[in-house]
């Protein structure tokens, strides 16, 4: 619907501007994006329609695929919840408190974006293996991380960590101190102020970060496969199942799972845009 109304109005409506280069820049950008991103993605979806709806559903929702969605979904959700909790604490500490090494930690938050996922993967696996730095303490306590569901969650937590912190930080910086002062002057305790005044203001940013982290974790591959153990039905994530099907030349089965994942990502993308719009309304209302 949007695409249709866009294509109709797009060439027709543009505000006049004294600046040159619109056609050249826009033409190049659209052609490049179309060839590299849109056409290949459309080809993928089109390919998956080369089977009957029944075959598609059978491939997309057979027991092994369903198990892989469950693993991906629950581990991503757990990672997003861990990041939502600890990320809020980290963002609050980095903005509001001054402590030794704060700037270094602040810069380090972006490490998961810069560090290749394969490197994160082998480092975490080594760290949590039974002989590893952390694994040797956890394993006697009966907590096995490497090659279990917990390991997948640890890897997804690492790679999606920056999202919550980086969306909350500016929101905390922009907090109007008068709000907290008013709340305190009306007799609220600090805890009451934080939970009933500060938290609701930060909620849209927190949810945006949470959803971004979840969406990123859902498609993650590189960091997970080293630590997951990759047992079908137990620790096999959906992106890995796609690769397994491709390696068996079962392109149709692979596209069925990929299309399902793609639809999930698009729904999350829409959700993120709605949350961001809500967040913008929240932050511009008071001014």
């Amino acid at each position, binding site marked *: 619907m949007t*695409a249709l109304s*866009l294509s109709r*109005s*797009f060439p027709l409506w*543009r*505000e006049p*501007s*004294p*600046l*040159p*280069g619109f056609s*050249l*820049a*826009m033409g190049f*950008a659209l052609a490049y*994006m179309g060839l590299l991103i*849109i056409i*290949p*993605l459309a*080809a*993928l979806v089109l*390919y998956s329609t080369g089977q009957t709806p029944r075959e598609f559903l059978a491939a997309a929702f057979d027991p092994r695929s369903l198990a892989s969605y469950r693993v991906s979904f629950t581990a991503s959700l757990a990672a997003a919840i861990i990041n939502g909790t*600890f990320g809020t*604490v*980290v963002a609050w*500490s980095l903005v509001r408190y*001054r*402590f030794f090494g704060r700037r270094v*930690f602040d*810069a*380090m938050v*972006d*490490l998961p*974006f*810069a*560090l*290749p*996922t*394969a*490197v*994160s993967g082998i480092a975490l696996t080594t760290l949590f293996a039974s002989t590893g730095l*952390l694994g040797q303490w956890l394993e006697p306590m009966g907590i096995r991380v490497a090659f279990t569901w917990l390991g997948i969650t640890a890897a997804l937590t*690492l790679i999606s*960590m920056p999202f919550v912190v980086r969306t909350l930080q500016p929101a905390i910086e922009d907090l109007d*101190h008068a709000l907290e002062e008013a*709340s*305190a002057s009306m007799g609220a305790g*600090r805890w009451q102020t934080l939970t009933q005044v500060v938290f609701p203001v930060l909620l849209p940013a927190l949810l945006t970060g949470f959803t971004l982290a979840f969406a*990123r974790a859902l*498609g*993650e*591959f*590189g960091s997970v496969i080293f630590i997951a153990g990759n047992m079908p039905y137990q620790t096999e994530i959906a992106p890995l199942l796609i690769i397994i099907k*491709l390696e068996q030349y079962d*392109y149709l089965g*692979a596209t069925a799972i*990929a299309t399902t994942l793609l639809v999930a990502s*698009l729904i*999350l*993308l829409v959700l993120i845009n709605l949350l961001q719009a809500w967040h913008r309304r929240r932050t511009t209302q008071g001014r």
Partner: protein
Amino acid sequence: MAGFITTWQGGHGSAIADAPAVRDPRWTRWLLIGVSVAFLAVMLVAPLFTVFGYALYQGFGRYFEAIVEPATVSAIRLTLITAAICVPLNTVFGVAAAWAITKFEFAGKSFLISLIDLPFSVSPVIAGMVFVILFGAQGYFGPWLREHDIQIVFAVPAIILATLFVTFPFVARELIPLMQAQGTGNEEASLSLGAGGWSTFWRVTLPNIKWGLLYGVILCNARAFGEFGAVSVVSGHIRHQTNTMPLHVEILYNEYQFVAAFAVASLLAFLALLTLVAKSLVEWRLARLERRDDDEI
């Protein structure tokens, strides 16, 4: 009030009021700082230590041996070639897209911005897979390509295409908010003084956006070096031919050559740390420019 305001300078230039009303009790502060540091230490510092620790576990001699090994050198070469092709292409796209989006008003702009972000929400595995569907043996162009003896999948071209796909949004994403904030005033002034379009771009726009552009290029480059999932699908993992650095790390690790795997991984980790330093420098530079602009006003 003024007496309560300390001279603390916030990380992003905001002075924080130290008034009792916005100040958390001491025990809360220590608890939250402790939790933050512990979380970041376990999730970020410990993995980083593991990489460098294992890489140097058997001394510098073994470390360098692992790096100058021919298969490793060819993986490094392929990664450098891939980045050298992908980063400039996506930079040109980023500048063109940001120019069209921020300097003009047209219908469907926010939809277009969302589309540019699309590769970020697509699984890297899918990003690689689309090129298998197009150019693979059973893909749309597979038969035609085989007739003409052109190899794309399981060869260098697909590695480059997959990397282009996943690094596509970085430059555009950094430039769009920056150029939106700068508006069109400078360019309009330049044009009205008789400068041409290109010379306005090179002499007015580019100097204004150079730090943001650099930042986007740095992030794009980091991802081009490190992409694993998308490249893994299309590479075929042929040693000396289609093995990039992250794929080589995987192969070495699965062969239990841990020192060698972590040695190659340490090169990538070192690049990641350089990326963070460069990013911090650029951010610091941008903040200083902003403050100078504020002073001038």
